[in-house]
């Protein structure tokens, strides 16, 4: 399924700076990720790990307090960071689309469903209202909304949560983007509705050759949906690679601990491996590796020197001194 590289982030950093410029939060710090056309990438992390900032950086939708301070963001051969706001507006919603967590907040309660689904088609493709409306009906059908002809002229409050989220999905794919970023798309949905929605996204991906990025804290979604995984901790990607390789043999102690901490349906009720301590405060990171205070395998070196990203096998890397002996070459060099 993997084709040529669609998106590649190179040493990307985005920081939040306080008004006086005294406090800097390194929400995204030196992130290097690449994604092929039609692939699915899961970005996993806890709250405050920088995963949502990373998603907003990719869309260039960061709030005013945030700056992209370094790096390149290559998408279809062009650096998105070099684009003007005007040019970026043509990419957003057309080439790259995004689905947010709360479908009620992403839909305008005052406009009909058809109006909102048709909007990107009118704006980006200059389609006439009537054509766009017809396309909206088609799109509702493709996200499996029953009786799309009547639903199209209804309003968001007339829909259930699962339907609203599917409508947001329809808006996302309306201009046939190459990349769809989904930020916690199913957190507000019930289990069976979540399963329906994830299957729908997978079908849409197959039909349209979409690349998908899932931003989530849920490793289950990654296990179900993704080919590639990037684990974030304190603004950095601490481990990345193919999903099955990481689940079977995680390198970074944080990934290991995360995988050990999820209860399984078939377990005998043994104790879970909990990770001690709390996620760190991004404005006040410890010297050295940010995970060191919670790491079961910590050494003195970890506390003073942050590990670079070690490439341990092609397409796989970890930011941990433990990975150094396995490293093919240091990508930081």
């Amino acid at each position: 399924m993997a084709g040529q590289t669609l998106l590649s982030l190179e040493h990307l950093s985005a920081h939040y700076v306080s008004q006086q410029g005294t406090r800097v939060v390194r929400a995204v710090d030196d992130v290097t990720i690449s994604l092929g056309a039609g692939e699915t990438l899961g970005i996993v992390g806890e709250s405050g790990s920088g995963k949502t900032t990373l998603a907003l950086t990719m869309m260039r939708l960061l709030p005013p307090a945030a700056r992209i301070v370094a790096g390149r963001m290559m998408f279809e051969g062009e650096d998105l960071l070099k684009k003007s706001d005007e040019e970026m507006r043509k990419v957003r919603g057309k080439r790259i689309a995004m689905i947010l967590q709360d479908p009620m907040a992403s839909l305008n309660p005052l406009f009909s469903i058809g109006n909102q689904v048709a909007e990107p088609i009118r704006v980006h493709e200059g389609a006439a209202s009537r054509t766009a409306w017809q396309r909206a009906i088609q799109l509702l059908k493709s996200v499996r909304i029953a009786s799309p002809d009547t639903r199209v002229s209804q309003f968001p409050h007339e829909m259930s949560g699962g339907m609203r989220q599917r409508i947001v999905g329809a808006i996302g794919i309306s201009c046939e983007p190459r990349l769809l970023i989904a930020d916690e798309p199913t957190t507000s949905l019930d289990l069976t509705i979540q399963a329906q929605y994830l299957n729908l996204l997978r079908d849409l991906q197959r039909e349209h050759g979409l690349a998908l990025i899932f931003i989530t804290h849920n490793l289950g979604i990654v296990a179900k949906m993704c080919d590639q995984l990037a684990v974030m901790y304190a603004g950095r990607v601490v481990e990345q690679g193919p999903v099955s390789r990481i689940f079977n043999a995680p390198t970074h102690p944080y990934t290991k601990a995360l995988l050990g901490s999820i209860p399984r349906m078939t377990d005998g009720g043994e104790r879970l491996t909990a990770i001690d301590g709390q996620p760190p405060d991004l404005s006040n990171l410890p010297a050295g590796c940010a995970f060191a205070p919670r790491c079961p395998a910590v050494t003195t070196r970890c506390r003073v020197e942050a590990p670079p990203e070690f490439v341990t096998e092609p397409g796989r890397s970890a930011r941990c001194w433990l990975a150094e002996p396995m490293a093919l070459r240091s990508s930081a060099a």
Partner: protein
Amino acid sequence: MTAVLQANDLTKHFRARRGFFGGERGVVRAVDGISFAIDPGRTLGVVGESGCGKTTTAKLVLGLEEPSGGSILFAGRDLAGLDTAGRRDYRRSVQAVFQDPYASLNPRMRISAIIAEPLVTNETVEPVELKRRVSELLDLVGLPERSADLFPHEFSGGQRQRIAIARALVLSPRLVVLDEPVSALDVSIRAQILNLLRDLQDRLGLSYLFIAHDLAAVAHMSHEIVVMYLGKIVESGQAKTIARDAKHPYTKALFSAALPSHPDERHEEVPLSGEVPSPISPPSGCHFHPRCPHAMARCNREEPQLAEVEGRLVACHLFS
């Protein structure tokens, strides 16, 4: 062995007003004739999607709602027959931990006051004794003793949930209702809290009523599970039996919709069409029949009763 808590044919109906002028009236059968029992030192897990009645069940058990029908027996005594003193005793014996530890702790109170509050309201305790109890509980939930003088904002989500647990335990209850106790917490913190709850159960012989969306967490924590759909129990039994081999088509679909814990576990899904219908006008017969892949002619006429099938109870015509 008497069950700590036993619910018999428990029912709660809410009157619903439909329409702006309230012309038509409907009845929401939030909980519709359910029975279950929780034994000492055991955990009963309740699973189901939104609108299935699990939160109403928790409220009934906590005495926050009066049942419209049926009864709750606590240590063999019917709650409806209790006098004021008996009621008070019941409230002390049944405590709760809620989902959002940011909403459930008063930001203006010190941790010591938060934990001691149930004790102050219910008993006459000397200040010295109060202080001793608070530090004992902080120790029990794994927080440092100096936490007593701090305020909730000085704690993270996981620590706040520990404080909420300490408050629930201060009156030495026999049953604790856990309503989504880890859903609001970070993944790396969830395991800490689940382990803590397990340890406390072993040490203090507590019983839990555990309500959660996360099926794996429920299966992990519970001894028995009841699966609810639109106010009714569709399947109940040993947690392991149900997690490994569900019988009711809804339970099957629900567990197959749960996310895998490993990519190699990607399994076959039972596709469910549609969404949970409105509890104001539930479908006739078996409430699940419009979404059921095995629906038969009798399913929309006749309501199936719970009956024993291979060591658990199932309400489905497929097995009768």
